[in-house]
């Protein structure tokens, strides 16, 4: 079993979550649409999960719409609002996940006016640029992420929300990476829509949610069926929903412990990295997720370093798993104004609740071997 350091890509299902799911992978069929006793039991389980997820992010259970994952939630938020307001202007951050970025660009291609919020080299919103764009023309929706999947950089969402609301628009927050790692409070963030994903917080793959305030008008992404207030038709994935609920409940109960553990491991990792020659850390000095470290090692392209580490039994990422394998430098780093050459070297380590200090030390030891082998060839400023 390799040492898994890629928790921003996906996490291992918690065995307690699997326990909660198993009855719904074996039980009496449970079509939640059926009015029969068994169908109602499935419906009750779905509503209980809704309460569990709502409790994790401090929203109302009725504000949750189940989706097949974070990508669909982001698509539903952007396309749903865009379809409900044909021609309305949208803004998104330059370092957003492809699920936001590519959706917004698809809308632009279909005629919606779309603007991009610039980011500073630290990965944070360029506030003067943001305010200028907000004032430019009437606006319907702004999409910003709470925590970046590659750098882990956290945005000041309440500050953005106040500006967005003053401009008369709604704010969509991609909280896929934040939920389960730091406190996520839908009310305190003052978001109007928010995306969540189960498999990033030790729940099953194939399930996510869009949280939305009652006044947000949205067209469905998938037509057909009255499920999820007709916003998302289709037979409910009961086992996965139950799993997401269980995972959310555990995340809420263990959040402080997990955060403290992750922060400790990250500090250990970062101080180790600082001792290595030729290491450049991205997003350093700003508030970041407690589990994420993105760095470049002089002399190595990210893909090559990833492969070396893989061979030595360490699973890391060269950026977003979604965009991997394309040989292109990370759009997140380019969006922060990082030079192409440096960006191409990026490797992301994302720690998880079950990682240990020993694993971090072993990782540093292997990396140290690479670092001393590579330093003479290329230097990194």
């Amino acid at each position: 079993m390799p040492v898994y350091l890629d928790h921003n890509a996906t996490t291992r299902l918690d065995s307690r979550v699997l326990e909660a799911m198993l009855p719904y992978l074996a039980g009496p069929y449970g079509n939640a649409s059926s009015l029969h006793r068994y169908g109602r039991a499935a419906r009750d389980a779905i509503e209980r999960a809704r309460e569990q997820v709502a409790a994790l992010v401090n929203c109302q259970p009725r504000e949750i719409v189940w989706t097949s994952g974070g990508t669909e939630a982001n698509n539903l938020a952007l396309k749903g609002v865009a379809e409900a307001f044909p021609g309305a202007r949208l803004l998104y951050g330059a370092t957003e996940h492809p699920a936001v970025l590519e959706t917004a660009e698809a809308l632009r291609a279909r005629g919606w006016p779309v603007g991009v919020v610039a980011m500073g080299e630290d990965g944070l919103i360029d506030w003067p640029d943001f305010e200028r764009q907000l004032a430019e023309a009437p606006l319907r929706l702004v999409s910003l992420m709470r925590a970046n999947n590659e750098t882990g950089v956290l945005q000041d969402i309440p500050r953005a929300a106040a500006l967005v609301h003053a401009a008369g628009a709604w704010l969509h927050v991609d909280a896929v990476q934040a939920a389960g790692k730091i406190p996520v409070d839908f009310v305190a963030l003052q978001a109007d829509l928010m995306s969540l994903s189960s498999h990033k917080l030790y729940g099953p793959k194939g399930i996510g949610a869009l949280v939305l305030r009652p006044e947000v008008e949205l067209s469905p992404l998938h037509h057909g069926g009255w499920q999820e207030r007709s916003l998302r038709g289709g037979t409910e994935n009961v086992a996965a929903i139950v799993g997401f609920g269980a995972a959310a409940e555990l995340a809420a109960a263990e959040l402080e412990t997990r955060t403290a553990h992750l922060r400790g491991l990250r500090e250990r990792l970062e101080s180790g990295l600082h001792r290595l020659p030729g290491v450049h850390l991205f997003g350093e000095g700003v508030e970041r997720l407690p589990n994420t470290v993105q760095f470049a090692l002089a002399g190595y392209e990210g893909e090559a370093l990833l492969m070396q580490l893989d061979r030595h039994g360490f699973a890391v990422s060269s950026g977003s798993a979604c965009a991997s394998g394309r040989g292109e430098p990370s759009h997140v780093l380019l969006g922060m104004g990082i030079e192409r050459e440096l960006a191409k070297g990026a490797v992301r380590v994302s720690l998880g609740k079950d990682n240990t200090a020993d694993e971090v030390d072993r990782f540093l030891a292997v990396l140290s071997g690479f670092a001393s082998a590579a330093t003479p060839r290329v230097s990194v400023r």
Partner: protein
Amino acid sequence: MNPQENVYAYREPIWARFRAPRHGGRLPAGGRLLEAQAGSPAAHSVLRLQLGLNGAIVAQVRFQAYGCPTAIAVGEWLAEQLEGQPLTHLAAIDAAAIRDALEIAEDKAHCALMGEDVLRALQQQMSEQA
């Protein structure tokens, strides 16, 4: 499984009357009868009520119903309420009373209205016969 089990979770006052109606059927011909019907097959609900009169007293009641469990329960409940009462009692029952007694939810309110319609039709006949 109990063949009488209420697996679709109908309210108890509805379920008991639906599963064991005591006043279903028709009265034998002869004697003084009042009879009325409300609802329509197209709306999936029809209720027919027959009153057997003894002077101004409702001596016997029978109902027939086509429709959902709530519609059937309304027929049975009206029969229970009217049997042994003076005819004037018809005026005392309306849709709200039916809904209260049977705990009928909003989406089945039309069943209670159908019950009221039958009572009013019976009153109409009374006044025509008088």
